[in-house]
């Protein structure tokens, strides 16, 4: 049994789920999407929070939840209309409740008067002033004035010694073969009192397939007797091959079930007796079979037979399936993730050995190895899906943010969420919150115009921000778009010139100007408001996203709004990589960064002045970067017929051709962070262990493209030796 502390944790988890339900429900109602059940669900969630808080002794939480609940109850009963104003107050109340839960969870004192304003608003809604509420608080926990006398269990007994039992006799198929006769048992049963049985021929097969020594018929009915249940059960004590059940039917008048009992409960007509073989017929004869005229039920207690005991079970099956979940500590899953990582490495080593074996020997082995590879992949995917969490957990925090910021700056903004169920690894979820908060705050504060300005521009007074998520290949794409004013290009350009980020005479396209806001150093202390300034920290956002392997792109149309999109890898622990060789060194490149690989003929390379060479690819010029130069490895620094060009997507739509010497193949690699030991190294994302046991660095393609302009040879070289020593 769980301890009190564990139960409290469970309670807080429930609260977190409840808060989401409340917020979602209220938003739905506000948008006119709420069904009748929605307000009930919100009410139940608040009620549960209150109930649990009461049990675990969080008084402040109980009191606020109580007022909240009462208001919801008024709406539920139709005493209070769910107008937008009312819902806004309720949404505020849900924020306060959420804060109160946080205080309780952290074990902090609730600040004096916290949420008092909101509480008064709620009380005004239900037409109650503070004094009335006080009275309610003082209400006794018992309804003293209610004429309720607890019913003693003994008082529920029958009125006479004669009891009615429900009996069922079901011989197992082998009963007759074992020399037992169900009829004898039934005769004994009859000696105890009035027996009223009905035969159940449901198990009777076709005449052709019927076997004379198999017991097919079962009986159910009632027994009225003064005997006790134990005495009845004694009869069947030694009849091991016969299922028997007896249960007492109370002397209560039957109470209607909430679920109507349909006609199915009436036994189907029995098959004509002609079908029965002699033996069965003989067995059945002594018992009133009465297939022509079934007798009326003997006494009022009998209708109970109409409600078969299987009924609730059938009902349970019919009920909508419930999600069954279990809570596992993250740490446990992480241990298994590590284990799978080791498995992937061991498997790669095995693959290497098999590869080196002489042909003929390796055939069968490699076949099995393929299977192992397949299973490992599935194991990894399954495990990752366990670690995965819906982005909804982050998205859910945004409506509140939008409400608060919008209220502060006096704007009307609605937030539309979609794709909340899109799942992504937990480690990514955790690092998604900050950048997303920042972008959305920016959107409300600067993207969306003030109501008057919007009306003047012929737009709806209420601005819209759309936050969506979806899978695209092995990445998740999150998009924030608003229908605001977009980026003020002139102002951005002027500011960039001021700061010397752009040459005074440089001519930039609109896209290039828009992307300036993400440049480091663009935003500084010149804060436009206390909430955010457009561009404040956008470079931080970009860095955050890039740290988790994400790419950010931005699209703004002046006067129409802007869209910020970022794509992230689904997992950070194991990834698909392309093993490449540069000189004698082996590197791994994330598959997700690779657009294509090719071995271009010499004639396709143009040596333009000021560049390291350009590859002519289907009419497009792609700048080439020699990995050998960049990583300071002696390698051919010219594209020969042997070298490979890897076309990568370096983010923001730019492409880059990385020149390597050899492609060794595609494999799953386990990502081992080197940041803890070496700090961030430009151009290197992490390290991994290859099949032959050697360590390879995983290249960070986006950083590489930055490096290409300003290479720092030596950094990576120094790392190569060091990492090999440490990781291995």
């Amino acid at each position: 049994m769980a301890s009190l502390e564990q139960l409290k944790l469970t309670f807080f988890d429930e609260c977190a789920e409840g808060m989401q339900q409340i917020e979602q429900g209220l938003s739905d109602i506000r948008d006119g999407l709420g069904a009748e059940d929605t307000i009930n669900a919100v009410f139940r969630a608040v009620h549960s929070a209150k109930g649990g808080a009461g049990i675990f002794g969080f008084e402040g939480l109980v009191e606020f939840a109580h007022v909240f609940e009462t208001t919801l109850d008024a709406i539920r009963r139709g005493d209070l209309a769910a107008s937008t104003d009312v819902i806004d107050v309720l949404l505020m109340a849900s924020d306060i409740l959420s804060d109160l839960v946080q205080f309780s969870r952290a074990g902090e004192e609730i600040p004096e008067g916290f949420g008092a304003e909101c509480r008064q608003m709620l009380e005004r809604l239900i037409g109650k002033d503070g004094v009335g509420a006080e009275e309610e608080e003082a209400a006794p926990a018992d309804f003293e004035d209610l004429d309720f006398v607890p019913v003693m269990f003994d008082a529920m007994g029958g009125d006479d010694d004669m009891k009615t039992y429900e009996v069922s006799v079901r011989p197992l198929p082998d009963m007759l073969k074992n020399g037992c006769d169900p009829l004898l048992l039934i005769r004994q049963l009859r000696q105890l009192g009035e027996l009223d049985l009905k035969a159940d021929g449901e198990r009777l097969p076709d005449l052709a397939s019927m076997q004379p020594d198999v017991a097919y018929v079962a009986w159910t009915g009632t027994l009225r007797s003064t005997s006790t249940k134990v005495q009845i059960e004694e009869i069947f004590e030694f009849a091991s091959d016969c299922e028997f059940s007896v249960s007492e039917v109370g002397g209560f008048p039957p109470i209607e079930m909430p679920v109507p009992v349909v006609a199915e409960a009436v036994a189907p007509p029995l098959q004509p007796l002609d079908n029965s073989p002699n033996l069965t017929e003989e067995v059945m004869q002594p018992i009133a079979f009465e297939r022509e005229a079934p007798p009326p039920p003997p006494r009022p207690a009998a209708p109970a037979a109409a409600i078969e005991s299987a009924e609730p079970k059938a009902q349970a099956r019919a009920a909508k399936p419930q999600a069954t979940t279990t809570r596992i500590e993250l740490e446990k899953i992480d241990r298994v993730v590590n284990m799978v990582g080791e498995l992937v490495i061991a498997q790669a080593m095995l693959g290497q050995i098999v590869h080196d074996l002489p042909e003929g020997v390796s055939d069968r082995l490699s076949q099995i190895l393929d299977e192992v590879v397949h299973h490992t992949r599935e194991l990894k995917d399954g495990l990752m899906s366990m670690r995965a969490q819906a982005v909804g957990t982050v998205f859910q925090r945004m409506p509140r943010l939008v409400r608060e910021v919008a209220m502060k700056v006096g704007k009307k903004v609605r937030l539309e969420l979609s794709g909340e169920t899109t799942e992504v690894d937990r480690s990514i979820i955790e690092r998604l919150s900050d950048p997303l908060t920042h972008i959305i705050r920016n959107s409300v504060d600067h993207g969306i115009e003030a109501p008057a300005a919007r009306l003047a521009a012929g737009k709806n007074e209420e601005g819209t921000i759309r936050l969506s998520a979806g899978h695209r290949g092995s990445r998740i794409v999150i998009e924030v778009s608003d229908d605001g004013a977009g980026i003020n290009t002139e102002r951005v350009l002027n500011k960039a010139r001021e700061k010397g980020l752009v040459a005074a005479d440089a001519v930039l396209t609109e896209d290039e100007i828009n992307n300036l806001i993400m440049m480091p150093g663009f935003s500084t202390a010149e804060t436009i408001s206390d909430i955010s300034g457009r561009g404040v920290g956008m470079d931080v956002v970009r860095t955050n996203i890039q740290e988790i392997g994400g790419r950010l792109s931005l699209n703004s149309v002046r006067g129409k709004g802007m869209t910020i999109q970022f794509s992230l890898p689904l997992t950070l622990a194991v990834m698909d990589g392309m093993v490449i060789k540069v000189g004698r060194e082996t590197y791994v490149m994330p598959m997700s960064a690779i657009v294509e690989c090719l071995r271009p003929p010499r004639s396709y390379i143009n040596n333009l002045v000021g560049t390291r060479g350009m590859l002519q690819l289907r009419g497009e010029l792609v700048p080439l970067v020699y990995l050998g130069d960049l990583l300071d490895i002696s390698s051919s620094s010219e594209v020969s017929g042997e070298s490979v060009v890897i076309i990568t997507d370096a983010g923001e739509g730019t492409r880059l051709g990385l020149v390597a010497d050899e492609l060794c193949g595609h494999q799953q690699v386990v990502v081992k962070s080197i940041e803890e030991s070496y700090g961030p190294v430009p151009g290197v994302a992490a390290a991994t262990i290859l099949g032959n046991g050697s360590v390879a660095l995983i290249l960070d393609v986006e950083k590489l493209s930055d490096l290409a302009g300003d290479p720092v040879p030596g950094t990576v070289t120094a790392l190569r030796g060091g990492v090999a020593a440490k990781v291995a």
Partner: protein
Amino acid sequence: MPNAVALKVLVVDDQDSVRKMTCLTLEQMGIRHIHEAENGVKAMEIASLQPLDLIISDYYMDQMDGLDLLRAVRGHPVVRRVPFILLTGRGDRELVVKAAQAGVNNYLVKPFTGAILKQKIEQVMGKLA
């Protein structure tokens, strides 16, 4: 005088924390046979499978609430005589009236202490040994 150790109790509540807390309180009373269900439908399933001496159920549940469960129990041939205690909120007067009509044995207002729970059980089952 019923023996707490022998008493078989079914606790029905859709809120894990509260249900487990109730179970914990029952355990502290010496009750060892405790079944749990998270809604009325599950409760009926459990009740029809094994003998029970007492059902303690919350009212608010999304699949078959406490009152519906009480009515289902009272209309069920096997479990109709099992004592039933309904958990209610502070303001649920009407509910108690309805429950009384449906044949509830006792009610218990949340939040409750172990002492009150015991008292309410003993009002129905007799003093626990």
